[in-house]
């Protein structure tokens, strides 16, 4: 099953090239240079993984991460940064990021993380479905 990914980064040349490379690896990719537009896209569609730059004009990546996680805690978010520090990593994990990768990124590592994100999301969705079914079964007297 192809992974559905959203890329949010203000560097146009970066997301254009990365999108094309990810698509050639069988992924379905949407992208935007605007974090605000990214939030609108997340409201309308669902994704297996969101790749989010940490430093952007309009809003920084941590703000975007916080908003997305508040709306949909199951979404898997991978942050990208120019300089990954332990401090930034901890902050990102505390806010619910799945991982923090340093630019320039290795496409094989990113692809691997996206596959893991998709698997993790599927487990979460399955768990929720099971819980819903259990609730229905226990609340109804057949």
């Amino acid at each position, binding site marked *: 099953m192809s992974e559905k990914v959203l890329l949010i980064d203000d560097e146009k040349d*970066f997301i254009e*090239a990365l999108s094309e*490379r990810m698509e050639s690896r069988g992924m379905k990719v949407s992208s935007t240079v605007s974090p605000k537009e990214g939030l609108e896209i997340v409201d309308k569609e669902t994704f297996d993984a969101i790749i989010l730059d940490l*430093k952007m004009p309009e809003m920084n990546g941590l703000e975007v991460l916080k908003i997305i996680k508040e709306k949909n805690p199951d979404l898997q978010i991978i942050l990208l940064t120019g*300089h990954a520090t332990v401090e930034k990593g901890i902050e990102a994990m505390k806010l619910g990021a799945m991982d923090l990768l340093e*630019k320039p990124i290795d496409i094989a590592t990113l692809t691997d993380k996206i596959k893991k994100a998709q698997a993790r999301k599927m487990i979460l969705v399955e768990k929720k479905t099971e819980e819903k079914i259990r609730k229905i079964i226990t609340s109804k007297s057949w």
Partner: protein
Amino acid sequence: MNGTIGILGETGLKFFGAMTASASHELKNVLAIINENAGLMSDLTEMMIKSGAVDLDRIHSLAGRFGSQVSRADRIIRNLNQFAHSMDHPANEVDLCEQLQVAVDLTHRFAAMKGVGLELDLPETPVCLKTNSFFLHHLLWLCLEYAMDVSGPQKSVKIDCNKHSGKVNIKISGLHHPPNRYEEGLLSEPGKAVANFLGAALISDEEEGSVTITLPENIVFSEGRQL
């Protein structure tokens, strides 16, 4: 030097750190773009080998992307190098127009993060002065940082300069000073310390929405102002 780092040293080092961190961050972005485009070129080459069809337009367009990122990196490194050399001498002959261009380029990324545009309006002839280039960069940064915070709804800051009656003036306009902000922000330490070291005066005009830095044509190191 009195053996302690002092306010000029402390804030100067912080400023130096902030500028180099920002420039290195931008360089990482350039490397990331080059990396992705190199990867894309490699992917396309593999596809072309398999299909036997060569897409010259794609290769040409990718080469263009490499070229523009190399120019971008070259500009960042040139500015960073010029900035680093600003510490070479306690005082030297400075072309203010050139220094303002470097200062605006170094501030560009911070301005973009705040959604503020910086517009440089320079005279055609050089405006020369003898000053400490590093602390002039520092004072410009403090003023631009302040200006970006109070740039108002238009989010556009203009910088121009001139020389008049032995004084050099740098005007930063497009500001909407909130009450007391100028005193609390720009005129607090370290702004005062840096301005004092350079023999500069900072004049705020709330009606016009501007701050003017007035510098002597030749810096004079009086006792206690020496590095």
